[in-house]
């Protein structure tokens, strides 16, 4: 296939899956077979594209124009390639896990669950490959809309309310802030195509750039920079596979991916660092990192704690971009991949605990490590990666960000990263400690359950292994990140 055909295939494979899944709704095994086939096909396609990108090519494809010079267009640059690679490879693992989870918990409406999931993945690929702001925005919105039915899947009062917050906050920020920012970029810069060095480079004064940056950062609600982070804890009412792949990987990463993309290709690192009006971002991102970590400390619900941890970790990426040095942007890029594999592991573990024992609170987990050694072992690996300790992937991103911040003397950023490492340890290590070293207490002691169904255990083991492997062999992500900043 030609490069442009590969792009179209990558977009259409999940769409076709979404079309065929309802046709097989009466035969669950066939239905899940379709999902799994699509995941594998997608990964194969993405790997072929990866080969091209690593060879220095930038495959592209242009579709219809909606306004003069504004088209539905795709162009794969290294950052998008990395994002697509992460999303498509984790989709395989997550589908395996979904099957175990949805069947294990006898969830209703499984067909529409798999349909929406496939559409969400298609839009994630669309975001990753977008050539211009319009295409990015299009798939950004489709991603919000397609994940809304997943958030409200349980159809309980809590789920509906969570869905409301989710939809209003994500659609609201994107329409009231992001879209005007895109239009302003279009009017000022004369194009919406992502440009190396920045669309706005040399076209606007410092203050305009600073204001526009603020509108972008808060407009990209998916990046969950405070105060627009409420949707993420609200989205935790969704079934765990949704929280795992979408609200730890696809949706939130689409947010920080867009932030990095905007900083690098709309403003340009050079332009922003000399504008004199971008320094505030370090403080906003830093505050989000710290406050979210402190809130996470106080959460007893495991998924909520993970959600606030995600809010905090996402702002690491924003922070990495805000430091505005090429090396810190490399760190931010690596952290997108590293956080993805480790956070999905943590969510897998949370879902596995829920499926096996129906426990949801941290305080109920005493001694559970003895019953579910695989699950809690994987959890421990994920936790180490969140803290940023070797030999896990989380170490890499932090290391690059720290060296970027230190080399330019941004001690605030250095302080934030240090302090949050301590906080991360404070809210993750007690969970691991309690699971393995505290004796089971009260009611939990009488439950006699083992591990969750095997597809779930296999999935979480795989991602835990990936967390370690990424540390040992960061070759591909590192190459892509370096390619992006031109190092």
């Amino acid at each position: 296939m030609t490069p442009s055909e590969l792009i179209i295939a990558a977009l259409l494979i999940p769409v076709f899956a979404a079309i065929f899944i309802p046709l097989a709704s009466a035969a669950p095994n066939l239905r899940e077979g379709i999902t799994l086939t699509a995941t594998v096909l997608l990964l194969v396609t993405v790997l072929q594209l990866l080969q091209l990108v690593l060879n220095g090519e930038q495959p592209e494809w242009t579709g219809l124009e909606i306004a003069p010079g504004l088209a539905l267009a795709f162009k794969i640059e290294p950052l998008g390639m990395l994002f697509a690679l992460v999303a498509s490879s984790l989709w395989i693992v997550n589908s395996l896990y979904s099957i175990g989870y949805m069947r294990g918990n006898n969830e209703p409406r499984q067909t529409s669950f798999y349909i929406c999931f496939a559409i969400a993945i298609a839009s994630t690929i669309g975001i990753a490959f977008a050539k211009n702001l319009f295409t990015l925005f299009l798939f950004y919105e489709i991603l919000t809309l397609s994940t809304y039915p997943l958030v409200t899947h349980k159809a309980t009062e809590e789920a509906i309310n969570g869905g409301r917050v989710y939809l209003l906050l994500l659609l609201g920020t994107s329409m009231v802030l992001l879209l005007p920012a895109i239009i302003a970029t279009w009017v000022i810069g004369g194009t919406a195509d992502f440009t190396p060095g920045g669309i706005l480079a040399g076209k606007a004064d410092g203050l305009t750039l600073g204001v526009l940056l603020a509108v972008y950062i808060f407009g990209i609600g998916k990046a969950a920079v405070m105060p627009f982070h409420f949707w993420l804890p609200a989205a935790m009412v969704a079934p765990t596979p949704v929280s795992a792949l979408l609200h730890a990987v696809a949706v939130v990463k689409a947010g920080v991916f867009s932030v990095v993309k905007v900083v690098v290709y709309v403003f340009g690192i050079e332009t922003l660092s000399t504008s004199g009006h971008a320094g505030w971002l370090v403080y906003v991102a830093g505050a989000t990192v710290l406050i979210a970590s402190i809130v996470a400390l106080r959460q007893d619900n495991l998924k909520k704690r993970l959600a606030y941890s995600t809010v905090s970790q996402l702002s690491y990426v924003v922070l990495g971009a805000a430091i505005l040095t090429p090396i810190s942007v490399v760190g931010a890029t690596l952290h997108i991949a590293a956080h993805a594999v480790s956070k999905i592991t943590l969510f897998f573990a949370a879902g596995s605990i829920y499926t096996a024992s129906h426990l949801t609170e941290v305080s109920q987990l005493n001694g559970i490590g003895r019953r579910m050694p695989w699950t809690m072992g994987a959890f421990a690996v994920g936790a180490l990666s969140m803290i940023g300790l070797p030999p896990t992937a989380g170490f890499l991103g932090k290391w690059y960000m720290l060296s970027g911040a230190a080399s330019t003397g941004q001690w605030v950023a250095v302080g934030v990263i240090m302090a949050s490492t301590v906080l991360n340890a404070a809210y993750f290590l007690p969970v691991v400690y309690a699971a393995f070293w505290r004796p089971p207490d009260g009611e939990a002691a009488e439950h006699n359950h083992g591990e969750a169904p095997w597809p779930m255990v296999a999935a979480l083991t795989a991602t835990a292994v990936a967390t370690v492997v990424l540390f040992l062999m960061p070759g591909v992500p590192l190459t892509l990140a370096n390619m992006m900043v031109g190092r």
Partner: protein
Amino acid sequence: MSSSQLPALQVVLPLLGAVICAFLRRGTLAWGVALCVTWTMPVIALSMLWQVLATGPISYAMGGWAPPWGIEYRVDMLSGFVLFLVSGVAAVIIPFARKSIATEIDSTRQAWFYTMYLLSLCGLLGITITGDAFNVFVFLEISSLSTYVMIALGRDRRALLAAYQYLIVGTIGATFYVLGVGILYSLTGSLNMVDISSRLGELGFQPPVLAAVAFLFVGISLKLALFPLHSWLPGAYAYAPSFATAFLAASATKVAVYLLVRYFFSVFSVSQIFEGLPVSEILIVLSVAGMIGASLVAVFQEDVKRMLAYSSVAQIGYMTLGIGLANKQGLTGGIVHLFNHAITKAALFLAVGAIVYRMKTCKIDDFAGLGRRMPLTMGVFVLAGLSIIGTPGTAGFVSKWFLAVGALEEGWWWLVAIVMVSSLISVVYIGRVIEIAWFREAKPIADNAREPPASMLLPMLFLAGCVVYFGFATSMSAGYASKAAAHLLGAEQAIEVPAAAGTKQ
């Protein structure tokens, strides 16, 4: 049939059809006549539009009397576009009418309904095609009177009140309009729009012109339901038969907006009467008030048709905003929204009409559980609702984009903010229906709810397809609108919007 007679046929055929329908007793038969007439309309409109693109505006002297003394029918970029829009939407939705009307109107009155529908279609096409200011008034009355009857045929008793209210307001509007035309006639001695325009230019500024402007603008604004002159619209849309609501929402206000554009840019702008007059400013303020105010009111409606009616008032604000901006991008946005909103609102009202067909009600609470019982109908509702919100990938986004670019080019970022806030409010009212339709348990009343028959379903699905299609392929909608805008603003040439760019490496 000689193609040179097409402008006359565009108006005469529906008129003849109306007369035939009046003699028929069987509703289905009358529907058949209406169907035949309605389906020829877009063919005529399209062939004229094609001719305009090839050889420039068509001028047709009615009865052979040369303008400016005789009545001139004039098809140019803009009127051709609106003719095609009105006749095209009518042609798409007419198959829907038979079953819907059969359940909503007594069998003895169905033929009358189609008579009125064809008269209304005749009036609306007439307003658009004629180049004569007084002839506009005649067609305005034809369309208005027949519309009052259509609304009054609604089964709910409150339809009578709504029709009466519309009658009063509509008559005031028409009176204002004819007064304005009278003043213009006394000043210029002409009724032909092109002629008036050039004579006003020669005349220079005269105080009575201000009175004419005021009468015309208020009169037309009543017809197009510009906020705060919209009081007639919600009742009329809510209680008219479902098909009539869909037809009117897609055509009547759009034609009135066309008339406003026509006077604003073709008749008055040449004489530069507006220099020093805050017409644009007033229009923008009222549009903005409507976009926010009517959207907020829509949030609190209990009846879906009424909610959509208020949403229409808000969406009309987008169109008049584009006119008020009066720069190329903004006007393109206004005109393309005329098109986009027509297909979007028609789809929405058809979906609601299908629900009325099955449920005999359109209270929001009765939508509970319909998401799973009528998935296609509600799917159309969601898709068209997204277009109202202005989600990218739907037609509504395209209009919003052009409007916002137009506003930013003037440096009015606050206007962009208002447009966006208004679409955010529409998320609330559309989302409310969706939430109830999917997450609430169905009521006993919904026990028999299932998808409507194909004759109703297909027009809806087709319109929903259009909503998505025109969200991406804009050469026909926005491309044409930008040509018409450039033409109206007297610019040298429109920016070309290339068709499908196809696969590029």
